């Protein structure tokens, strides 16, 4: 037992994980491990099941069947212990636009029970880390997409999580901001030994930062390994080519949910109202 443990220090273990919505299996019998301290990239076309997997790992969604362990705790049962051990940057916005950057951080610090004595220093440290300290007093609704993302990363790291989940953290950002964000992430991983679990559509980014990669398609994992291994196995020059070999070239369509429609409507409305 002890020997097996030291051999594979897996901070995330997933076995036969399945999530069904009525008859449709969004995640279908998925198994993988993430080692402590590594950067793990979860890749796949739209609607492949990436976000659904993250939601199950982060206690937002209950699995239909299968097992998960996050730093030794089960997200489906020991939710509080699991919630303490990770930080997350969601695919879409999750800040309170009416609050200032500092207030968003402060809210997070309080609900994650960061002791009062260190709260302020910790918030300052993280806001400086993402270069938003000067803008701490501004309401988030006046921030650009890149600034919001950086604030979300700072917030996700505030309570010193062991694992950081990043669901497409660079979606819709310009190359400058993308680079800055990846620098931050690599830096964190190296110096704080934070395990990073990320999804992205940009294969070149995954190739650059990830130690290990898993490709998911139609809810199933079709390939796992280091970026090097996947390229070698498919005889590809880039990870993108390898990705296309595994997932084919058909374009996927994601069904819009009621929520998406509403989000669109609200965007139209706010634009018309001029903010």
């Amino acid at each position, binding site marked *: 037992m002890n020997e097996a443990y030291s051999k594979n220090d897996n901070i995330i273990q997933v076995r036969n994980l399945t999530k069904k919505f009525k008859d449709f299996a969004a995640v279908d019998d998925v198994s993988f491990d993430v080692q402590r301290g590594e950067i793990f990239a979860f890749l796949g076309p739209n609607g492949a099941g990436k976000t659904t997997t993250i*939601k199950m790992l982060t206690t937002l969604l209950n699995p239909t069947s299968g097992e998960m362990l996050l730093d030794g705790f089960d997200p489906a049962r020991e939710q509080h212990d699991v919630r303490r051990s990770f930080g997350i940057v969601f695919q879409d916005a999750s800040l309170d636009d009416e609050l200032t950057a500092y207030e968003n951080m402060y809210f997070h610090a*309080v609900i994650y029970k960061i002791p009062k004595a260190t709260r302020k220093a910790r918030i300052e440290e993280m806001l400086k880390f993402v270069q938003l300290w000067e803008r701490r007093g501004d309401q988030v609704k006046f921030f650009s997409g890149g600034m919001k993302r950086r604030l979300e990363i700072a917030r996700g790291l505030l309570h010193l999580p062991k694992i950081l989940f990043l669901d497409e953290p660079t979606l819709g950002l310009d190359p400058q901001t993308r680079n800055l964000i990846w620098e931050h992430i690599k830096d964190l991983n190296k110096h704080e030994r934070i395990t990073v679990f990320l999804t992205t559509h940009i294969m070149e980014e995954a190739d650059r930062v990830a130690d290990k990669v898993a490709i998911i398609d139609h809810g199933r994992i079709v390939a796992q390994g280091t970026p090097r291994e996947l390229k070698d196995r498919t005889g590809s020059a880039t990870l993108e080519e390898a990705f296309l070999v595994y997932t084919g070239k058909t374009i996927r369509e994601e069904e819009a949910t009621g*929520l998406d429609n509403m989000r669109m409507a609200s965007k139209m409305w706010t634009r018309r109202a001029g903010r």
Partner: protein
Amino acid sequence: MSAVYILWLRQLKRYFRSKSRIVGALGQPLLFLFALGFGFGPIYQQAGQGDYIQFLVPGIMAMTILFTSMFTGIEIIWDRQFGFLKETLVAPVSRYHIMLGRSLGGATIAIFQGLVVFSISLFAGFKVENWLMAPVAIVFMFLTAMLFTALGTAIASLLEDMQGFQLIMNFLIMPTFFLSGALFPLDGLPGVLTYITMFNPLSYGVDALRGALIGATHFGFLVDFAVLGISGTILLFIGGYLFSKVQV
């Protein structure tokens, strides 16, 4: 408990930052107050019932509380849409504390709105029977507000998006208001209406406010307190339970 406080604080900050919401939420009650109060006043007086404004103001205050607290509960859908709900749901905090913090925040705002309507009505000629009863009025405003915030939360936990919102507005909030005795006395109503008003929790909120502000109750403070307290507690538990089942 600090989580409850920070959620309460967030509701208040959001509220006081959106000036349009403050003004918007006051428009409807003031319209009712002036149109009905002065419109029906003469008839009410001729029927020998006294000053209609005196009678109406507690009802309009209850209406303000009903609307504001139901909206606060339903605001969860809003948070879901803008993503902030996920931030609270991944946090290592009891779902009941989240719900409690939100509800207390909503109740505080509702009471504040009720007091603004009350202050304006003083200019419209409303006279308080006994100012010493003011704390009693606040207690009942709080009970009414908690009850309807919990109801709003329960409903919002079951809804995916705003599609069903109009339905709730037309088939729940408006009937609750109109069939509560906010606009008319509960004595001598036809049979069916008597029963409907009896099963409407807002009736007891309106009644208690009337008792505290103009010294006339239909059910009596004790009954009002018991009904609001018990049904409010039950709804808080139902709301908390449904909210704890929310997945995003």
